[in-house]
């Protein structure tokens, strides 16, 4: 056994597991929420990391049986606000009033949630090459401008193609959510 590892008690294991399961369940919602507030995925990752760490550190304060998702979202919103102050000079960062409006509405219970299963169904409806192209430009670490330059199209034309695919996908997803709700 390593000097630095310590055998955990059963209660600790259980506690870990509870946290793990809650985090895995709610983290996508948090990242989606942050994406609408922060200008780059780098920012989203930073704040999501920080929020997860704080949630873990404060997990003792979380009241079992209440909404973990809401609690995590509150932490994420606060951390995003702190982060915003650091990057506020960027033209990509929204003004405070716009930020508040978007955050309020995105955090609201009534806000519809696009989930992965919705998207996967709609992605399957796209031609394989279009599906792959769309996923490629959304792959972490891929710079959309570089993909555009490699595509042989002008950047403007490339962005139009991507945007058309996004609109098709969004319409498909919203329709499937509407059908599901009805």
């Amino acid at each position: 056994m390593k000097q630095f590892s310590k055998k955990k008690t059963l209660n600790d294991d259980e506690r870990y597991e509870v946290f793990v399961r809650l985090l895995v369940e709610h983290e996508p919602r948090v990242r989606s929420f942050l994406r609408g507030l922060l200008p780059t995925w780098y920012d989203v990752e930073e704040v999501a990391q920080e929020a997860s760490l704080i949630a873990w550190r404060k997990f003792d304060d979380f009241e079992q049986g209440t909404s973990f998702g809401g609690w995590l979202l509150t932490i994420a919103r606060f951390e995003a606000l702190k982060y915003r102050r650091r990057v506020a000079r960027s033209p990509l960062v929204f003004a405070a009033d716009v930020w508040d409006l978007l955050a309020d509405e995105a955090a609201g219970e009534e806000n519809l949630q696009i989930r992965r299963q919705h998207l996967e169904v709609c992605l399957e409806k796209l031609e394989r090459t279009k599906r792959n192209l769309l996923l490629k430009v959304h792959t972490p670490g891929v710079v959309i401008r570089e993909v555009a330059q490699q595509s042989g199209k002008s950047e403007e034309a490339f962005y139009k193609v991507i945007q058309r695919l996004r609109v098709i996908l969004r319409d498909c997803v919203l329709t499937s959510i509407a059908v599901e709700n009805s």
Partner: protein
Amino acid sequence: MMADLEKRIAAWLDGRISEAESETLQQELRDSAEARAMFNSFAQLDAVLHEVADTEQVGAISKAGGSSISTPKPAMTRLAKAALALAAGIAIAVAAILYVQYGSANRDIARITGLNGGLIWIGNGGQIVQGPGSRQQPTRWSNVLNEDAELPGGTIEGTALDSWFELEFLDGSTAMIFGDSMLTFSDQGQKEVRLKQGRFSADVVPQPSGEPMLVHTPVADLTVVGTQFDVEAGPESTMLFVREGKVQIRRVSDGKTVDVTADHRVVVTADSDMLLWLVGPDRAWVQTPFWENRSTSGNQDSTATQETRDSDGTRNLLLSEEPTTLPAQDTGHIIRSGDVFDVGYVWRSDKWWAAQDQVAIKLFTTDNDLMSGTPTDFATLLSGTPTGDGAYQAGSGRTTATETEAGKKLFVAIDTQDGGGDLHGVARIDNFQLQVTPIHKSGLRRLDDFQLEGTPFSAPPPAPTAVIIIGGDVRNGNFNRL
């Protein structure tokens, strides 16, 4: 109109929106709930697309858009991705589940070779482990980090100014963090570290072909084949200094890349020109006019000044708590009673400088008016404690000479006052200034005060003015003279 709005939303999400378009978009979002709903739906779509794409094609440490990783690696499950993200401190407990599934990823990759001060390590499996000097309340799961302990990768965080942590990878490459720093490290066949903030030094042995060490900071990505270098990272800037070899640095925001060779440094910010600055070699005491090493060792060949970690693009004095180093100068000034001495300089803490350590400027005389004589301090002017943010801060002090020192030669030493810490700390000093204002006590007559008989009384003497003894180029106060 809707098409224009969609276009602006897409440009914002892709990070290519212009300032004018951003203003327009914000106004639309202010004015229209429909616009906000549309924005929200595209943002959510982007997030889910990102999640799906991330699962199907993912690198060892996931990176945000704009990063240098442009060659996606084989797909992993979301849980596996989350396990690696955990190592970066994202989702601490996810790895507890994944530990069983991905046990091989948990192999030890590095050994602790030294540590000090408040430290927290967060590793696979969610262990939160604190260093022996941590001031934080230990958690129930805490243990203590020890020298020689082996780690499987994870995030190490220094929580105090005097924190430091040294790591040796299996191939002999070493890495250190200092002070309030946070570093995530992994080695799945290719070393990858992420310096969220703080200071990081590495001595990297030649890496396998095609698998350079990757260092990520908030604003830059570094590619290291084998070299020695220092990095300082903040939320908006990264400074790289290469001591040996070559490091490629790439600005995340626009992909601009430069190769930084030995003895050069570069600063990367959103709008920096990323020009390379030649950092001159270290200079010893014998190459530093007016100043000498007055320590017991008297070694005049040890390092006195450097250009790295500068305050103004020029050389600075390296100050150490080591007893073998004591910068001092014979000022040549003969003290008069009532002389007011003002000292000013800028300084910053560096490696191992503890939170209570201070710079101590000592003014002294000797029994034979020679530097080699027996010293008697008549003033010790302390700098105050460091801010610890890596920025230069001002230090100053004032003292008045008395009859005791009158008639003797003034010497000055730049010493340290140890406030704690296990190791000898290092600080940097620049733009040292010492000035004297001759203010003489009433009733004590000087030769100048006597009038020759028959001569008229002159006008009242002018107000005393300060005279610079050391400062700028005078007696090498800026440490730049050769």
